[in-house]
């Protein structure tokens, strides 16, 4: 009861802070308006076909003012100070355009900006590295971007599917590993922080990423920062940050309906053919978005089903989402978003043995998990001046799951209800003299009620951060900043951490950029890592209240260069030093406990290239070598492949598109051998490199006025069998047909 009261009181406090800020903003609204009311309006078109460019970023140099073009290519920058200004317009697939000396006017006058297509894109605008929009060339860290087209192209059902093709990233049963940062920790804790529109999105109890709660249809793009990001984002950003940017409605009503259906092929070995029934997958989704002057909304839903190629590995999902935006005035906007997931699924823990690799152990055959999760987000943006804006955001992630997996404490299964709230006020200011300041405060509140498995716990935290980007010259730019965090969980000692960072970028000439950065990271253990008491798959997991945060220092040197108009190269050298790494440790009696056991060092290199031949044949290739070592024992860290190679190549011949994706991950050298030694997973040590080819083809066509896209995918084309985790065979060959209608 006391926990509930504390929780409600803290929630009330956060709401009070939010509304106080909101009221303050409304009161001062108009003050800035009296000073400036100029506007720059225009249209962005492509030089290739003179058609409008949708989604281009238009920035007023030297300010924080910016806008995005709508589906007609229109943009409007408001509240511009008197005088002439320089504009920077950028868009993926086009060369960045610099428009000098644009006169801000009170009367209407349209400017036309013509963008030239670029064979290779060097300067996309990103937001995650510094919490504001900036060119990728100005970022002192390695970053990758997945745009919405790539999600559609690969028929991404859950976001982690798309991340499998990002250089330096691998996924083990939903846990993200960026450049060797993460092995496998049984679904609890993450060393890569996931954000939705800049706010953390991890479950309060297990501290994991719930990928299925993020419908791909909501996503505009995904930004992946490689390396410690705790200096801006705090706990969990130890190995990197993944920021999911959701779509904004355009001024034209848009409805998208998408359906897909597919089939898993029977494996070629008869002993793996556990059923003669067809194993199918499929789904139907829709989104609609519309804008009415100051008001905009988008709404969507999906139903997806997957029989699974393994026995008892099925799932059935309902997803729903909505976003309402309201431009309160030219200086401030408010947005409220909501998403919900309802999922029923089986649970395939480990195979029986390699001869029956697609069948679970008999005791797990009837395992079921039911979950309901929803997320409510509110954000408010206020422009105090052309060089200053403040963003306020609140996110509430509610998670409730039940399973029927018997434990020593409760033979009927376990259940957990968690609420994770985060609130943040952020200031961005462009100071004369070439400084861009980003600072803010944030608070978190976490309430977990899971009597039999984690117990009932409340945690809270707070942070303050500040970063300055300094233009030392036209070519040289530095970033310096730090963040102080404190976090506490009821009954335990508070954890405090200051994480500094410093970075430099140098652009000697257009198309060439060098970068260097040093930063620290930390992660406080999740409630599940501290308090889990259960038995799963023959393993007894015991709590460890003495668990301490893990810490890291991350170093990177890199450079990118446009070799010619068809080829771009990027090379990075990186090193991560980690202390008190939290790993599950086996006791002599077969019990497992999360412990601070590892002092680790990870060094490596990453080379990626994009080759674009006449906009018709586009190839991306990325190779990452990682040497993840336990400093104390000299052993390779568990569940980390040393070599990762990705190749994606596609041919465009309008209206057709054909492409392939290839993934190679070298054989994981170290695993928890205890699984095999204790007889928990027969043949659990059987593993090979991962070498998978996917093939895709699509065609665009029109049905009356509806734009249609039909596609066929063959995943795991050559039917290569591999284990993606101990006792788990990766997806077998499957065929998927997709149809999308855009109205």
């Amino acid at each position, binding site marked *: 009861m006391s926990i509930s009261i504390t929780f409600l009181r803290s929630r009330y406090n956060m709401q009070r802070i939010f509304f106080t800020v909101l009221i303050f903003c409304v009161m001062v609204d108009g003050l800035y308006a009296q000073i400036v009311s100029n506007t720059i309006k225009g249209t962005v078109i492509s030089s290739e076909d003179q058609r409008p460019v949708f989604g281009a970023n238009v920035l007023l140099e030297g300010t924080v003012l910016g806008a995005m073009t709508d589906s007609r290519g229109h943009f409007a920058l408001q509240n511009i100070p008197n005088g002439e200004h320089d504009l920077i317009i950028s868009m993926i697939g086009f060369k960045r355009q610099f428009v000098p000396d644009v006169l801000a006017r009170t009367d209407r006058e349209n400017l036309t900006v013509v963008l030239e297509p670029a064979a290779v894109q060097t300067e996309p605008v990103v937001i995650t590295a510094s919490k504001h929009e900036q060119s990728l060339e100005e970022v002192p860290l390695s970053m990758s971007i997945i745009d919405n087209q790539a999600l559609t192209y690969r028929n991404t059902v859950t976001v982690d599917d798309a991340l499998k093709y990002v250089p330096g990233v691998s996924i083990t049963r939903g846990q993200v590993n960026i450049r060797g940062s993460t092995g496998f920790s049984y679904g609890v804790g993450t060393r890569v922080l996931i954000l939705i529109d800049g706010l953390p999105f991890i479950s309060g109890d297990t501290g994991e990423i719930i990928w299925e709660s993020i419908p791909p249809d909501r996503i505009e793009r995904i930004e992946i920062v490689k390396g410690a990001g705790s200096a801006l984002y705090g706990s969990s950003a130890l190995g990197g940050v993944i920021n999911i940017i959701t779509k904004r409605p355009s001024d034209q009503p848009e409805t998208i309906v998408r359906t897909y259906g597919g089939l898993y092929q029977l494996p070629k070995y008869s002993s793996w053919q556990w059923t003669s029934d067809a194993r199918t997958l499929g789904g139907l989704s829709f989104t609609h978005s519309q804008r009415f002057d100051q008001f905009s909304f988008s709404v969507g839903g999906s139903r997806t089903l997957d029989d699974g190629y393994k026995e008892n590995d099925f799932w059935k999902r309902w997803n729903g989402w909505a976003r309402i935006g309201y431009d309160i005035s030219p200086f401030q906007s408010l947005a409220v978003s909501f998403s919900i997931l309802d999922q029923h699924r089986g649970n395939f823990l480990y195979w029986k043995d390699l*001869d029956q690799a697609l069948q679970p152990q008999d005791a797990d055959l009837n395992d079921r998990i039911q979950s309901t999760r929803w997320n409510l987000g509110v954000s408010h943006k206020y422009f105090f001046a052309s060089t200053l804006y403040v963003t306020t955001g609140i996110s509430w992630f509610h998670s409730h799951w039940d399973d029927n997996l018997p434990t020593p404490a409760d033979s009927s299964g376990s259940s957990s209800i968690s609420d994770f709230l985060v609130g943040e006020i952020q200031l961005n200011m462009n100071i004369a003299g070439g400084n861009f300041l980003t600072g803010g405060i944030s608070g978190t509140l976490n309430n977990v009620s899971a009597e039999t498995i984690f117990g009932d716990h409340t945690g809270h935290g707070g942070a303050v951060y500040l970063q300055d980007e300094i233009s030392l010259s036209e070519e040289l730019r530095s970033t310096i900043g730090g963040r102080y965090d404190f976090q506490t969980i009821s009954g335990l000692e508070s954890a405090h951490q200051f994480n500094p960072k410093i970075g430099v970028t140098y652009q000697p000439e257009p198309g060439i950029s060098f970068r260097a950065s040093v930063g620290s990271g930390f992660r406080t253990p999740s409630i599940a890592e501290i308090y889990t008491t259960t038995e799963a798959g023959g393993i007894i997991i015991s709590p460890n209240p003495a668990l301490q945060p893990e810490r890291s220092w991350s170093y990177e040197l890199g450079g990118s260069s446009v070799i010619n108009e068809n080829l771009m190269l990027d090379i990075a050298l990186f090193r991560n030093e980690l202390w008190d790494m939290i790993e599950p440790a086996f006791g002599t009696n077969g019990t497992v406990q999360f412990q601070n056991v590892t002092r680790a060092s990870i060094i490596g290199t990453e080379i990626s290239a994009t080759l674009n031949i006449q906009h*018709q*044949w586009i190839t991306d290739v990325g190779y990452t070598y990682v040497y993840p070592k336990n400093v104390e024992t000299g052993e390779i860290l568990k569940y980390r492949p040393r070599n990762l190679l990705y190749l994606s190549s596609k041919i465009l011949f309008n209206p057709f598109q054909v492409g392939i994706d290839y993934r190679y991950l070298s054989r994981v050298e170290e695993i928890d051998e205890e699984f095999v030694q204790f007889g928990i997973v027969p043949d659990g040590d059987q*593993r090979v490199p991962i070498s998978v*080819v996917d093939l895709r083809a699509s065609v665009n066509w029109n049905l009356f006025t509806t734009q249609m896209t039909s596609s066929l995918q063959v995943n795991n084309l050559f039917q290569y069998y*591999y284990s993606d985790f101990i006792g788990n*065979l990766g997806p077998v060959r499957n065929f998927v047909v997709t149809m999308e209608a855009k109205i």
Partner: protein
Amino acid sequence: MHRTGIGILFVLVLMYFVSCDQGLSPVSVSVPPSGISGFVYFSHWPPADSVVDLRLAALRNPPSSNLINEVLQGKAKFTSSLSPYGADSIAYTLILTPGKYVYVGVAQQFGPNIEQDWRVVGVYHALGESVNPDSVIVPADSIVNGINVYVDFNNIPPQPL
């Protein structure tokens, strides 16, 4: 466009070769075999009608009258029928479970009675040994090569039973 097509075809073929080893397979398929292999050398062939069948056998225990039971229990294994009549030699491979085999020999069925008309016509001897049969140790996951047996139909070894 033509070059582009060739390029992607090349990449696809390359992908095939890097992915075509199929990865994991069931244990029964993937475990490397164990056993013995070598040659059987022949001299002084008898008349063809007296060579009804010819097989090489490996036995865990010394030959006994319970040979059938030994076979049923997997303690004795035979090659399929060797059909080399008139040949100087024939190569063989016999898949065996790992362990010690005390008797490796070649048996000839010389008459129509499949249960009784058998005799041993050659036994494996290690180098330097010419009388007593030698045992062979078969390790896991490998084939022991060079287990050669010399058959002189005019000079057959002592019969074990």
